[in-house]
């Protein structure tokens, strides 16, 4: 599949934004979030910038962005429609949290709004993943790991951005939060490695399979339907830079896992170095996920490509 920058930005940025909101909502609901109005409003705003930029970026992928509002109508069958509704619905508890946050942050309505924010944010991440996992012709996206990967990547990158804010108030990085982040990072990286290993073994559809003529012999495309590229060959039979895939996987893994995880451990050992560590870790993870998302598209093979082999 052709990796469209608009969709890469959408999934990476809105993933981080909704992941951050999920952490914040969850911590407020549990009553473990640090006190102070600013401590709630600032991360909410960071999440708002990420989520909103991501969602706006996704409309750039549309042929008719001005009609994007129509996408809210088919929630009973379409995951894209559900994603649109869930993402917009998340702004309601977000506004509620912003309005209610004050003092100790133990106010019961704040905690309830936090819980709703957590649920809505997680639902949005699930819907985002289901847009891709629901597409049958793309075997790599049908993998059972895709859905948990989207959720955990959102939690990991969003958590790092929350930490990047909290680090400005030194000593606030709570041990359970740091350990939870490290656990998520290890699980998500293991899952991603196993996903990469699995999709390498997927057999690409060939012309014999696509035409249903494979039983007659070895079927090879002799002449394409057009002398020039078409929408199908540009969009679905995208092969550019697959040859660099293994190097890019290494780069992605270092940026989204190795470096942020090491910085997190370093910050736990030397609390004085927390601020630079947190900032670099969050930026590095987001950059790494952009590479990872590029590969998610570039390495996914669409069944229609079989007609062109």
């Amino acid at each position, binding site marked *: *599949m052709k990796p469209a920058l608009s969709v890469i930005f959408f999934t990476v940025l809105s993933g981080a934004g909704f992941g951050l909101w999920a952490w914040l909502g969850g911590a407020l609901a549990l009553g473990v979030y640090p006190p102070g109005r600013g401590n709630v409003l600032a991360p909410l705003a960071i999440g708002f910038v990420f989520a909103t930029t991501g969602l706006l970026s996704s409309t750039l*992928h*549309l*042929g*008719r*962005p001005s*009609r*994007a509002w*129509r*996408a*809210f*109508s*088919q929630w*009973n*069958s*379409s*995951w*894209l*429609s559900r994603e*649109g509704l869930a993402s917009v619905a998340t702004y309601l508890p977000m506004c509620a949290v912003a309005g209610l946050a004050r003092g100790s942050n133990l106010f019961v309505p704040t905690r309830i709004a936090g819980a709703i924010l957590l649920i809505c944010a997680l639902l949005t991440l699930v819907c985002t993943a289901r*847009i891709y996992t*629901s*597409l*049958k*012709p*793309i075997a790599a996206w049908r993998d059972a790991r895709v859905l948990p990967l989207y959720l955990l990547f959102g939690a990991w990158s969003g958590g790092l951005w929350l930490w990047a804010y909290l680090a400005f108030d030194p000593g606030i990085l709570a041990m359970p939060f740091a350990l939870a982040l490290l656990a998520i990072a290890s699980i998500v990286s293991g899952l991603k490695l196993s996903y990469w290993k699995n999709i390498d073994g997927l057999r690409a*559809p060939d*012309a*014999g*399979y*696509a*035409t*249903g*003529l*494979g*039983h*007659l*012999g*070895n*079927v*090879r*495309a*002799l*002449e*394409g*339907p*057009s002398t*020039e*590229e*078409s*929408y*199908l060959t540009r*969009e*679905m039979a995208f092969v550019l830079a697959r040859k660099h895939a293994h190097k890019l996987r290494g780069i992605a893994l270092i940026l989204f896992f190795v470096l942020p995880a090491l910085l997190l451990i370093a910050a736990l050992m030397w609390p004085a170095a927390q601020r630079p560590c947190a900032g670099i870790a969050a930026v590095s993870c987001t950059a790494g996920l952009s590479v990872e998302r590029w590969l998610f598209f570039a390495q996914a093979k*669409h*069944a*229609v490509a079989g*007609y*062109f082999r």
Partner: protein
Amino acid sequence: MTALPSPSKKKLGLVIDLDTCVGCHACAVACKEWNDGGQFGPLPDSEPYGAEPHGVWFNRVHTYEITGDGRRETGDVAEPSENTLSSSISRASSPVQTVHFPRSCLHCETPDCVTVCPTGASYKRAEDGIVLVDEDKCIGCQLCAWACPYGAREISLERPHKQPDGRPDKRGTMQKCTLCVDRIYNETLDESDRQPACVMACPTRARYFGDLGDPDSAISQLVSQRGGYALMPEFGYKPVNKYLPPRPRRDGSSMPASSTQEETLDPAQLPPLLRWLDRVLTR
């Protein structure tokens, strides 16, 4: 609505005979011509006469070369019917074969291109099963094209050269085969012309149009006689259109003997004049 309608009794579709198709692209050209001017047009191309022409075609013709023995000994389920074969023709050593393969929307019974649509623009007609795109609702998210393994859908990113009568700008919406719904029910056309443009244009009659939901219809009969098959049934979309497999080619053993082989001639079998000639010439 993007929910699929309950299965219709009438399932209009095409049957394409891969044995007869000569790959002339007449169907593709006739389709482009009709639909550029029809109800669903225009279908503009960018740089149609330039270095890199690009544009939407509802119908595209591939050509494949088939070599080798394939898997035919293993008793595949998709084995074409062999009732037209004599025993001397087997596919065991079939020579290289060329197959022309027109590809367009199969108007599936349970397609995901309809259900993934977030706006309700992509829909399947309840009355005859034709899958269409509502031009005015499509936002161009391309999810339906991603959901189709048959490559039936192409987005039009081209702007029409001119929009004389205030037609909407087609740019940015998904396009696909309409089964010429603006021909087949068009009462201003002669009744014999109420068929898809591709079927009308085919010079070898490799394309048939009809109701595949009716087991007694002429094209349903054709499908069962010729072992017509659906493409990639594993996706579970239940394509309505069917393809008739190419008839097996004669195998090598029935070809004229090669020059390296010793030819035997029994003069006793020849008529008297030729027997005399044979005797004179062998002297």
